[in-house]
């Protein structure tokens, strides 16, 4: 049965169904409904909702709870995510599973409260100090807010890593019918490494300090092996009309949904356009994109920022064919504007179909 839910609330409900019983957060637009929803829902489910004194405290409460073996989540938006970065670095270093939600808003600075994708670099490059990455999942509709939240908890436990859901203000605020998972997760994976009291075993230590550089390099090597395994196995993308496409549009999140409409109309107008939508931003689905774009004459990256994912697109397909269209500051590109870009690159010129070089 489908029910109508707001994006932010759908993440909250999905987390509960995924077995998350602990949430530590701080109010910031446009993610606050997630906080409000869980303040009501978690006590009902026998869990704990705690409004922290700051984003910094919230992420460190997540560290403690994750280290104690719980499924735990926090959420925020741009400025709050900046504050959480220290904690995220520690979580990645200590290999603590948790889910972090960023419902992006326009930046830099306090910016605005309208939807944006300007935190792509921060999310996909690690964000905090030190050599680390974390899986970043980008939903494009409210149903995916549900599905990817459940997936995020699974990935977090499987790889012992923080996982980020990178949404935006539009997805967070919109309402759509969703199908919730039929069976809630009741049994969580065993976590013999957790600090729960050392009764009947050696003591467990959750630590990120290694003063001996040889030891720290070995820790880094182990982390890099894990990141390589995630890169190899977990890249996901949605493809639409990519077969025989001359122009591949690459977009993620809500922008991909808008771009899909533009691609559909372009197709109807005789322009062979297709869409690749990365669902995982890290690992970036470079092989899927490279394969889809192998025969394409041009690649158009569309983002709600000044051009961030385009760097990953170029790494996947090379520099030559890549075009860019972006809006910033909370402005959302229309499908008409994206169609115009597609037509500019691959329209009918003097009665002949042509694709313009980048």
């Amino acid at each position, binding site marked *: 049965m489908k029910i109508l839910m707001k994006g932010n609330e759908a993440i909250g409900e999905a987390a509960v169904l995924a077995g998350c019983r602990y949430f530590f957060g701080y109010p910031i637009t446009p993610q606050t409904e997630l906080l409000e929803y869980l303040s009501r829902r978690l006590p009902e489910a026998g869990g704990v909702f705690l409004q922290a004194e700051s984003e910094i405290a919230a992420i460190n409460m997540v560290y403690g709870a994750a280290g*104690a073996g719980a499924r735990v989540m926090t959420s925020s938006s741009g400025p709050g995510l900046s504050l959480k970065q220290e904690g995220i670095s520690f979580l990645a270093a200590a290999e603590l599973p948790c889910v972090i939600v960023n419902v992006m808003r326009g930046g830099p600075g306090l910016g605005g409260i309208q939807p944006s994708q300007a935190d792509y670099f921060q999310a996909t490059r690690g964000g905090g100090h030190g050599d680390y990455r974390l899986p970043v999942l980008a939903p494009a509709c409210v149903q995916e807010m549900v599905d990817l939240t459940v997936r995020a908890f699974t990935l977090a436990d499987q790889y012992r890593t923080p996982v980020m859901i990178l949404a935006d203000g539009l997805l967070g605020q919109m309402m759509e019918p969703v199908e919730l998972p039929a069976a809630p997760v009741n049994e969580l994976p065993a976590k013999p490494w957790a600090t729960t009291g*050392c009764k009947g075993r050696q003591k467990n*230590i959750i630590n990120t300090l290694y003063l001996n550089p040889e030891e720290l390099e070995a820790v880094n090597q182990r982390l890099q092996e894990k990141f390589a395994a995630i890169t190899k196995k977990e890249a996901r993308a949605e493809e639409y009309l990519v077969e025989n496409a001359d122009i591949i549009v690459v977009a993620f999140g809500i922008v991909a949904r808008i771009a899909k409409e533009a691609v559909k109309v372009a197709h109807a107008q005789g322009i062979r356009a297709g869409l690749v939508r990365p669902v995982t931003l890290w690992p970036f689905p470079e092989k899927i994109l490279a394969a889809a774009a192998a025969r394409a004459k041009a690649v158009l990256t569309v983002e709600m920022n000044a051009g961030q994912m385009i760097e990953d697109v170029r790494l996947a397909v090379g520099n030559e064919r890549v075009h860019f269209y972006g809006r910033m500051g909370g402005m959302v590109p229309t499908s008409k504007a994206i169609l115009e870009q597609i037509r500019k690159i691959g329209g009918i010129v003097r009665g002949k179909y042509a694709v313009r070089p980048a």
Partner: protein
Amino acid sequence: MANTLFVRPETLTPDPFHYCPGCGHGIIHRLVAEVIDELGVRETTIGVASVGCSVLAYKYFNFDMQQAAHGRAPAVATGIKRVLPDRVVFTYQGDGDLASIGLAEIVHAAARGEKITVIFVNNANYGMTGGQMAPTTLPGQKTTTSPAGRSVDQAGYPIRVSEMLATLDGPAYIARVSIHNPPQIFKAKKAIRKAFETQLRGTGFTLVEVLSSCPTNWGMKPAEAFSWLEKNMLPYFPLGEYKAASGVSQDD
């Protein structure tokens, strides 16, 4: 057969302390370990080490430990305690960690009445980084970042953490003790025990501020350092119980 007069508490690992000669951390670690042993809670205790000289406490305590980011130990302990409310959860923090970068976390953990214990070691300087001015550095005290002595015009005044937190309703037990001589060490242990017992009763937040010495960074011999503590720190940081909610036994 000889009587055993001195034995390592089960709660301490055999790892030798890395602390400087005359440093108070060794004594305070031992007091915590003895109390945990006596209460019989070693296997249900989770400690949180903070950033500073005592970050390596996770090596020395023989129970589950988490190492927290600088200043964030009370938030980390909050996360642990909320997941495992029947365990004993405590933080071990220095003055730079707790009273400077981590002030928000300690104040709010106290205000929420988190049922944790905080061992707050105040030695009036940043030890691990080599003796810089801390929020507890005394007026006129020389450090590597107040080479002419702390100027209150320029750097303001030390923070009295115990007094400040005692104004809140969340704490159930707050005391300031010292370890500058054996009678004070016994009193310190008593306060630490009360704090942990209060946590076990679940009546609120508990904190013991322990005045300690840092001979290396103070540039003194260990005995001189304890004399300096007694003469200079006690007047600014008076000892005593600042909060002992009803139900806490007042046995001295």
